[in-house]
């Protein structure tokens, strides 16, 4: 690979690999080198790559990004602004990929909860992470992340432990001398019958155009319950590539709510492997690109065992020159009889320059199943607009009201009421700004 991005990765990796946490552990060194070699060989995905059809990386290819931020610990962050209503549990904050103990609370953890920075685990007991770091990487950014991520989250919930307060994971980009790339990894394990709620938040502490990658490996033993909530408000210049990989054992349940609002180029791949009978994966989300934003969510839900269930409900609203992409793939493997899968994606296209691409995919290899999907792209109902205006609402307000009602259904199932109202408010605040961002 000869583009500026790959050259910079090669150079940075050579200097960084010996200093990464866990360096010197033979299998980890070998795995990192193998991932790096694979990345340098294949580079970033080309437009011809079907999974990257809608995501243009040509601009990124031309950028020689520095790796990590040596001064991450000194970046000014308003700790007060990080607080979220209804989220009062332990908190871990990462600035430009580096853990900030001063902004985090991980002391006094409730019983059954283990929460610590990944870097210290890698340095102390890399062997316990072999299953994660030794695994094969799916695509170019997974490879980059597997090579270069030196920090992140290690979260374990003991068997039967019910953690009441949600764990808050915050990833911030902060302006540095130059734009940079950061890579973080989260390893989350729930023991049998454990219960946990997590809030993953992305934000910016000032304007920047960093590239961030985050890979979260989330594993649930049988009967575990996880609520996973995402508020993505990265800086408008940021590129953010994430993968959340869920693996569910029998009777495990994941409920995911995601609000994708920020960033310039954001891609979130959500994979869910339903590996035990009756495992259930529910996902709800809203993506609302405006300005020149590209917001992409890719669901890959695999039913592997009997009577597994998945339900996905996503809303997209595109304004300005924004582009919203939803790829929603459901695979029901042979033998997964009794599986029930459903996906709905409705989209509003609000501007003549915006674009929505939606691709609901079904792959079915078993016959005792119920699977369906639906996708629509349209605009606000003229009659409803007219009705609201006839009641004296100005056009803009009427549009905003209908648009947020359209999206609201994706948040309705969120149990944490203060958080739900906060997310709804963030969304309502974001929506009218969408079109206005064109001029910006």
């Amino acid at each position, binding site marked *: 690979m000869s583009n500026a991005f790959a050259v910079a990765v090669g150079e940075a990796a050579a200097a960084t690999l010996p200093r990464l946490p866990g360096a010197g552990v033979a299998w980890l060194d070998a795995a990192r080198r193998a991932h790096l070699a694979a990345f340098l060989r294949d580079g970033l995905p080309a437009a011809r790559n*079907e999974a990257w059809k809608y995501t243009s990386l040509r601009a990124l290819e031309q950028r020689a990004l520095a790796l990590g931020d040596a001064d991450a610990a000194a970046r000014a962050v308003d700790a007060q602004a990080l607080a979220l209503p209804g989220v009062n549990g332990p908190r871990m904050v990462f600035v430009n990929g580096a853990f900030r103990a001063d902004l985090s609370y991980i002391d006094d953890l409730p019983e059954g909860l283990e929460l610590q920075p990944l870097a210290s685990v890698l340095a102390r007991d890399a062997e316990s992470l072999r299953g994660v770091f030794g695994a094969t990487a799916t695509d170019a950014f997974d490879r980059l992340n597997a090579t270069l991520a030196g920090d992140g989250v290690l979260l374990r919930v003991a068997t039967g432990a019910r953690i009441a307060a949600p764990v808050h994971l915050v990833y911030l980009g902060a302006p540095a001398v130059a734009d940079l790339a950061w890579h973080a990894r989260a390893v989350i394990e729930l023991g049998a019958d454990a219960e946990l709620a997590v809030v993953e938040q992305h934000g910016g502490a000032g304007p920047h155009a960093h590239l961030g990658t985050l890979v979260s490996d989330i594993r649930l033993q049988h009967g575990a319950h996880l609520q996973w909530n995402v508020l993505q408000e990265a800086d408008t210049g940021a590129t953010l590539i994430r993968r959340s990989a869920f693996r569910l054992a029998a009777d495990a349940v994941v409920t995911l709510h995601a609000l994708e609002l920020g960033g310039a180029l954001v891609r979130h791949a959500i994979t869910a492997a339903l590996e035990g009978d009756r495992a259930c994966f529910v996902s709800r989300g809203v993506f609302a690109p405006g300005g020149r934003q590209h917001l992409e969510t890719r669901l890959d839900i695999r039913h592997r065992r009997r009577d597994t269930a998945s339900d996905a409900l996503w809303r997209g609203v595109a304004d300005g020159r924004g582009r919203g992409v939803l790829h929603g793939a459901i695979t029901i493997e*042979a033998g997964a009889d009794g599986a029930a899968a459903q996906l709905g994606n409705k*989209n509003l*296209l*609000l*501007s*003549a*320059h*915006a*674009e*929505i*691409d*939606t*691709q*609901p*995919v*079904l*792959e*079915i*290899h*078993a*016959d*005792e*199943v*119920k*699977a*369906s*999907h*639906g*996708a*629509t*792209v*349209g*605009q606000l109902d003229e009659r409803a607009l007219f009705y609201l205006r006839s009641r004296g609402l100005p056009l803009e307000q009427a549009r905003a009201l209908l648009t947020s009602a359209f999206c609201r259904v994706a948040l309705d199932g969120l149990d944490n009421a203060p958080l739900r109202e906060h997310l709804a408010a963030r969304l309502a605040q974001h929506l009218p700004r969408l079109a206005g961002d064109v001029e910006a």
Partner: protein
Amino acid sequence: MTREALRAEPEATNADVLSAALERRYSAGFVTDIETDSLPPGLDEDVIRAISARKGEPAWMTDWRLAAYRHWLTMTPPNWAKLDIAPIDFQSISYYAAPRQGPKSLAEVDPKLLETYEKLGVPLHERARLAGVAVDAVFDSVSVGTTFRKELAEAGVIFGSMSEAIREHPELVRQYLGSVVPAGDNYFAALNSAVFSDGSFVFIPRGVRCPMELSTYFRINALNTGQFERTLIIAEDDSQVSYLEGCTAPMRDENQLHAAVVELVALARASIKYSTVQNWYPGDENGVGGIYNFVTKRGDCRGDDSKISWTQVETGSAITWKYPSCVLRGDRSSGEFHSVALTHHRQQADTGTKMIHIGRDTKSKIISKGISAGRGQNSYRGLVKVERSAAGARNYTQCDSLLIGKRCGAHTFPYIEVKNPTAIVEHEASTSKISDDQLFYCRSRGISEEDAVSMIVDGFCRQVFRELPMEFAVEAKKLLEVSLEGAVG
């Protein structure tokens, strides 16, 4: 074993039904033994020149083929479809096979040939008149007989083989050939452009409503000859035509490649309806043999208010890989796609459509019904694209899949790309098996399981069948019944 025979044996158990049906032979599997004049297997520029020379083509046509061939050499076979395709050795295929005697009229047609059509029930000769259908029968690669030509000529309709059209109407062919599917459009279209042997040519002049439904029966006969037909249908302003294409091939043990290109051009207010019943040899229950049906079909609604409608019933071929598409260029033009695709045993299908909305207030409708049985793999793949210019565009897509058995697969890969905020696009898909409740209800009314399945499948496909011309609808229904025998158990 026929269905009547099954009914005559009330004691037959499901297992008997199953094994009897599994052993059924491909009913159209016979080989007509006539001499053919073939080129030896292999492909290079000389072969293309030889094809062109044998057909007495003008130099521009030869050059067009050669340009396509040179482009093809630079391309690689696509691999994105959800298909498991054994590598194709393009050098082992014979690219030209024509019956040795050139018949001048139906009376001169080799009786064995006519017998072949007889077995297939092609309404040729008097039967053609009774059925009210004009037939341009393509036997392997060369058109051997055309009926109703006079009546059509009176209406001003040109209906004949592509070879004739190149000789007699070069200006029309030159103007339209490759204008919808360019020579280098895709790997198999490029190959077709280089070596196409024959096909049908239809021209409906301005204001003419074609007095009858036009029909072509394609048949692959000689061993190891790829069939590369090229069909071009042009409907001028305010004209109307309905075209029927039926396909069947005798039993062969080696995979045969069929890479056709069909181009439709609809000018202002013209309407083209293109119906296909494809029953090529699907291979046996172990996946041995069968046709590779890799076809590029595309219609161009070039004029305002034009309409193109594709209807297909795909029950044959080992692998079906095609996407009859509509480019909705004219304002208020509309495109439709109705499809039933059935895969049984080890058949694979990756089929669907593309609706490209460019003009204002364009409309498209997609109804796709996939049925998978045995170890069949059936994929719907479709693109609905609304360009920025397509204000007021409207699309409705419904794709349903029916699973019969535990080892088959049904897949849906829709692509929806919308760039205009006044467009409305709706897509719905569902996958299920035949419901136990429905089956139980039918059986409690004394209907056998096989008949119940047949009824339910017929109902499932009804939306598509009613788009077919009547005689085709009957054939399609029968084909589906025969193809599904042995799927239940």
